[in-house]
């Protein structure tokens, strides 16, 4: 089983234009998902994770409908077949 990562449109150019990244085998945690993204789509990773390995303050990651910031953050578990969403928070310029 794989994990599907759904990108917002603004990040899709950094992943060869695709809106959904398939990660197979499925990483066990959200941090593992981000490391897998870093290996293949480093531009996406840079927009989401800082040099100190934190999710940027105005970016939200969801596993299914659960926002990970309120739970275990990058240590949040990811089950086979999950969908991970990367979304801009309710803020803007």
């Amino acid at each position, binding site marked *: 089983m794989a994990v599907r990562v759904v990108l917002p449109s603004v990040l899709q150019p950094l992943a060869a234009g695709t809106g959904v990244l398939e990660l197979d085998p499925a990483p066990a945690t959200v941090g593992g998902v981000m490391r897998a993204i870093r290996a293949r789509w480093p531009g996406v990773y*840079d927009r989401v994770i800082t*040099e100190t390995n934190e999710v940027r303050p105005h970016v939200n990651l969801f596993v299914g409908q659960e926002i990970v910031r309120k739970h275990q953050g990058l240590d949040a578990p990811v089950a086979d077949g999950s969908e991970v969403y990367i979304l801009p928070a309710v803020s803007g310029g």
Partner: protein
Amino acid sequence: MATRSRRSANDATATLLMVGTTKGAFVFRTDDRRRWTMSGPHFRGSSIYAMACDARGPRPRLWASTDSPHWGANLATSDDLGATWAVPTEALVKFPEGSGLSLKRIWQIATDGAANPDQLYCGVEPAALFQSTDRGRSWSPVLGLLEHPHRRQWAPGGGGLCLHTIVRDPTNARRMLVAISTGGVYRTDDAGRTWRARNVGVRAQFLPDKHPEFGQCVHKVVHHPARPERLYLQNHWGLYRSDDWGDTWHDIARDVPSDFGFAMAMHPHDPDTVYILPLESDMFRCVPEAKLRVYRTRDGGGSWQALSRGLPQEGAFETVLRDAMGADAGEPAGIYFGTRSGKLFGARDGGMSWTLIAGGLPPVVCVKAATLAAPAQAATRSAAAAHRATGSALRARGRTGKQVAATQRRSSGARARSIGKRARTSARSAR
């Protein structure tokens, strides 16, 4: 920064104004400094705190620091005077793993230094200096400053803990001065290996010890390449001059309504002429008496005169920030500034009479001017045409390494429009 050779009004030149705002970048262009065309906003929704024109190569390259509220900070370039921009796929300016630091904003891009045209510097938040020796393809932190023992005692000012000013010595490639809010002025004489605080005489109004070795909230430092050892400093309370590369500073706040302010600009041809825009106080950061006045010294800070012709003199609750004033290299010099309320003013006579170039912009945080010679313009037009034809000229030439995000190119040049008539109308109402 502006090219430094004198150019009279009769020379075939173009003047470029690079205007960074909290919601994007705008590029204004003119051939006569009367009628301007505008392109932008580029990088819609991103704050643009630093812009620069590097005129050292075969054609001018514009730089912009982009700061998205969501996706972080990056550096973008344009080789066609802002018509299109290339944004690197990966962030090029990064703190080393293990440093415990992450990039928040790029506050300054320094493109001067004729000795090595491939060398660039940028100043960032949290306070650090990054260097590129390959014309911006890769960047690394200047470790002598990153690992400075004072770092742990530096504290953020209202804008964050930022390194916002880079002053290079055109006669000595190993010497450089930087300013940090709040950390003060630091100078290296050994190409960045070691740095010494250079704040003797500069007060820190907000600390129990008013004259510490470091910790001052310096807002801007300028100098003239013809007299590089003479520095002018606008402080968080205080206006100073140094004649010895910052070893000592002396108060020059005479005849000004306030010695609090942010913006400071050097005259392009005269080492004794400097422009500032005083604000009432740190507690009320608007121009004194709600009168928008630029102050100019022509005698190295011995005296200051208000320049207000064409600027609103009542009800002007305006703020001008540290990088929002600049000068072109024209003869006479053009002086420009932008306000937090989105007005862009210019004077093509050294500051004697001002007109509103544009109003209604987002809050302005950066104004940089460049004077471009005719051959460079021609080369740039040719390059821009080729660029648009291929869709990704930079990638095709393989010149920019990671800068291959062709899909991220912004093409806002088509939106360029003449605003001269509107600007003149607005200027009349501004009076």
